[in-house]
């Protein structure tokens, strides 16, 4: 959890808006440090978290969150965290052993044309935990609103899933988690550099990015510095709020620069880096 980012976004683990769809996107920069922030933030806020870790192994996320002060292993044991490890489960789908078909949620790996419906079913079943049936005396804790975190969507595009299927998936997640269950959704998307000519078919992260920006209510765009590589400032973050007021949408943009440390990231206004001042 990055304290400076919390003050920028005006949130804290004790009070945060519910029903939010947050999009984190990076263009030629790695925005995955923000996913670690949101993961530790919502775990501290005692929400029930479903994390689709498709890109790295569980111990990578666990090691980073340990530095941010949250233990993923404990959260998993207490059933606060449902973790889908894409790499490990995906291998058993690619190379089936002993007639086991592997995790059903990742069935799109075998046939990307099918779409992400099974993945959505997995998300839906993991956030609506069987809390009603159990008695309170067995010590199962009640967790807060459900949160879905996806790292990341662009690997789904690399695996052959169409942008339309990913947009459908995000729409279903938003409808069920944000509107019905009053939870939050955070999705990470990585875009390549701007392409001059259109692709023609709906494959392409630009189309997906535009569709997701339209759906979200808070977007964090991570970019490199326009002046090039700098060791003290790793890039800039553009924060766009799309508040739905009574009289139409009201958007507000702010740009900050950031530097990623070992134990966090610091955000500052443009030109006020500690290396400069």
């Amino acid at each position, binding site marked *: 959890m990055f304290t400076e980012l919390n003050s920028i976004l005006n949130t804290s683990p004790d009070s945060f808006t519910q029903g939010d769809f947050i999009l984190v996107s990076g263009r030629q920069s790695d925005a995955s440090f923000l996913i*670690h922030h949101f993961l530790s933030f919502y775990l501290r806020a005692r929400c029930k978290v479903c994390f689709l870790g498709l890109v790295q*192994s569980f111990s990578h996320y666990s090691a980073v969150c340990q530095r941010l002060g949250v233990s993923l292993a404990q959260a998993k044991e207490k059933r606060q965290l449902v973790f889908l490890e894409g790499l490990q489960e995906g291998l058993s789908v690619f*190379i089936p052993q002993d007639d086991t078909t592997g995790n059903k949620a990742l069935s799109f790996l075998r046939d990307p044309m099918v779409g992400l419906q099974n993945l959505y079913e997995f998300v839906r079943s993991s956030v609506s935990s069987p809390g009603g049936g159990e008695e309170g005396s067995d010590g199962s804790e009640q967790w807060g609103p459900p949160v879905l975190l996806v790292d990341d969507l662009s690997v789904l595009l690399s695996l052959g899933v169409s942008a339309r299927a990913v947009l459908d998936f995000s729409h279903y997640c938003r409808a069920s988690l944000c509107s019905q269950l009053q939870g939050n959704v955070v999705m990470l998307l990585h875009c390549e550099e701007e392409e001059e000519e259109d692709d*023609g078919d709906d494959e392409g992260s630009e189309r997906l990015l535009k569709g997701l920006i339209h759906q979200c209510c808070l977007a964090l765009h991570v970019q490199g510095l326009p002046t090039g590589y700098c060791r003290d400032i790793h890039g800039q973050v553009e924060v766009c709020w799309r508040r739905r007021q009574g009289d139409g949408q009201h958007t507000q943009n702010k740009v900050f620069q950031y530097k990623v440390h070992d134990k966090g990231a610091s955000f500052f206004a443009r030109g006020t880096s500690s290396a400069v001042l």
Partner: protein
Amino acid sequence: MAAPVNSVVNSSAKCSSFNATSFQKKTRSRLISIPGTRPSVQNGQLLVSTGVTSLDYLLGGGLAVGTVLLIEEDRYDSYSRMILKYFLAEGVVCRHELFVASAQHTPDDILQELPSPILDDVAIHKPVEQPRLSHEPQDSLDAMKIAWRYQNLPKVQTALASSSRFGHYYDVSKMMEAEIREAAKCHRFYLPEHPTQSSPTHSPMLESYSALLKSLRDVIQREGFEVTAPMSKSRNILRIGLHSLGSTLWGDDLCCHDNPRHGHALTTFLYGLRALLRSSLSVAVVTVPSHLIQNRALMGRITRLCDNAIALESFKGSEREANPLYKDYHGLLHVRQVPHLNCLASQLPDHKDLAFKLKRKQFSIEPHFYSTDVFFLTSHMSFTLKQVLV
């Protein structure tokens, strides 16, 4: 991420825990050393040498076990193939196991061209004792007159000496001797030997790639490279060299069309490769002919699915060969991606403009600065020209 050094001696209780990957938090159990590896000074990951010491330095000390290094080939595939051979030669010297896959040349062709290590302190397992000259009595040859205290110490260096050294130097003008090479265990995958049966599958991965992935998985399981394998065996590293993936010889049309039909074949394979590597004690070097791939977004996706990525651009045949700025070098090296595993920040190299030069005994990668004499020469020339015109 690379396996931390002491993951292999964790007790069975720890091994049966949830994370069956090679990336585990460093605990206080005693260290075990696999020959040819060392822990990273930054975050304790297990590193192996690529065979090129300057490339090791660029990558933050070495290649982390469980990661992939992507090399974007230069136009004639000369220097990228050289780095692949350095990588495999380092594996032979450190006594790791090798896996070589190629569609164009047979793996044996690649293995026979490995450079010869410079043998100052590399122990070679010679099963036969050094033959002594018959006419000289043994005593006078062995007897030391001055350092007689050291008379009875063994003369042959033991294997421990070579494993304590990280990164070796090679002489590219000589080939590695057959007996050294054959001492290493090598698994081969030559694509024409694996006829692809066209099974009805909707997976985007091509049959050639899925055959390769299956073969890799079989080798890893059979030889016990998985992190969750039983601890009774001594552990070793598997070095995987995949030559020219994405070229048309693998059945892929990435290099032929702007919008390839099999656009997701290589990326799906790389995802499966990452899954295999993260759960085993292996490290992979993949070369891709990126100069043939026109779709930059696709190349960006391929780079994202590998952990380390460098691109080689050689001056051979280009106009830069005659440019006095580059007269000391053979080409430019671009670092496209550096991993940040188990931590938030990545360690980018200090300099972005790097050039390489292949010398006989070293492949050196240096930051490339414009040399001052050339700068002054050109500015002086433009000054005199202006004087003449006026």
